[in-house]
């Protein structure tokens, strides 16, 4: 498909990324590296990555409404479709990308041993799903809209409603974990985790708009969340740095 040989991955642009140390997010204080990281051009170790075939994906993996509870019983809460496209920074679709998602239930409660929120578990909701992007880099899954939840940080911090995303591109250099937020949520600008990203446009790109064109009438609303991964340069020459 590609005509010219691909070079290494373009260096990460840190101005679009969160800072490691952000004291209002208290756990970052003792978990943030302080020394400068080591840079070098990507090698086969970063340009290769695990490949996951469509055979990995079970029939209900992308249907969080139904992949945990008894057969034909839906999870409780507002039904939504989340869809979007995974592309690289040069606009090329990333086909075959494994996406894993996890989230709280509609009440804001996670199914996890260390979760202490008083909101109840939904017996029909596990909270995980996965899918692989198609040849155009597109993906889609069904779930319930998660609720906001309080968390132990400041005396009264609430996470905006969000879905966690883990994405594998083609090279390990593209590995990314992020969170999708929902358009219109007033908690977004208040959240210390969101505020670890100092570039407002970068935050806005994590906010999924309502997408009426993909809404399923009388069934589910739709939200669109596009993801951009790092990309490889088109030519090997740009990446050749002598003496490294």
């Amino acid at each position, binding site marked *: 498909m590609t005509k010219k040989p691909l070079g290494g991955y373009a260096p990460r642009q840190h101005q679009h990324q*969160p800072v490691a140390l952000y004291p209002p997010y208290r756990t970052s204080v003792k978990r943030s590296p302080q020394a400068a990281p080591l840079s070098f051009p990507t090698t086969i170790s970063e340009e290769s990555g695990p490949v996951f075939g469509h055979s990995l994906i079970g029939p209900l993996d992308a249907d969080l409404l139904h992949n945990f509870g008894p057969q034909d019983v839906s999870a409780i809460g507002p039904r939504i479709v989340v869809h979007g496209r995974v592309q690289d920074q040069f606009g090329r679709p990333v086909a075959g990308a494994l996406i894993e998602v996890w989230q709280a239930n509609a009440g804001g409660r996670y*199914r996890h041993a260390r979760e202490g929120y008083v909101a109840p578990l939904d017996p029909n909701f596990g909270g995980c799903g996965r899918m692989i992007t198609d040849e155009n880099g597109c993906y889609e899954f069904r779930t319930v809209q998660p609720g906001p939840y309080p968390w132990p940080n400041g005396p009264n911090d609430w996470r905006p409603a969000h879905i966690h995303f883990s994405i594998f591109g083609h090279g390990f250099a593209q590995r*990314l974990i992020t*969170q999708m937020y929902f358009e219109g949520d007033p908690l977004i600008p208040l959240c210390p*985790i969101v505020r670890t990203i100092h570039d407002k446009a970068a935050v806005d790109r994590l906010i999924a708009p309502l997408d009426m064109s993909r809404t399923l009438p009388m069934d589910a609303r739709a939200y669109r969340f596009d993801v951009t991964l790092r990309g490889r340069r088109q030519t090997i020459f740009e990446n050749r740095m002598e003496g490294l």
Partner: protein
Amino acid sequence: MDTHPESASQTAGPYVHIGCTPNFAGITGVYDVDLGATMITGDASGKRITLIGQVFDGTGTPLRDAMVEAWQADANGLYAGQEGADPHFTGFGRCPCDAEDGTFRFETLRPASVPWPSGGVQAPHITLWIVARGINIGLHTRAYFADAPENESDPVLGRIEHRNRVATLLAHPESDDIYRFNVTLQGPDETIFFDV
């Protein structure tokens, strides 16, 4: 030319296990097995080793909620997906740290050297990627083998300005086939993390 900025990372949070290792988190019946639980899937060639370690925060406390991923070449220096790579080795492992003492563990193969883009080779290494609550963007590093003579000429280790920090990238043998690689997130023994 960049036309689209990379999406911003956000922390994996305390519940990363729900999405990445649901069986470990007690959410059974959704996926048969957790992704990356097995790196050796058959009669793979090469020396079997176990890579273990812990991830320590700036107070010296091991993280009990981190997740570590490993990506490495096989015993012939080939990555899964490359022509001739060992069909019984995935090269990819994923391990949730132990809920009590924070230990991670990979049952794997000792990798061979792999090429360096402008010629020569890189010493055997295992790429590690660490995510957890409080880590806003996944941390990328490498475990080299302290007993590997190839380290002498490794181009990455050779670039490290503060030579006393090279040791933070070395996995040390605890026995013939167990190597320990501890990660320190912050402080005087801080592991070298990569911007690559």
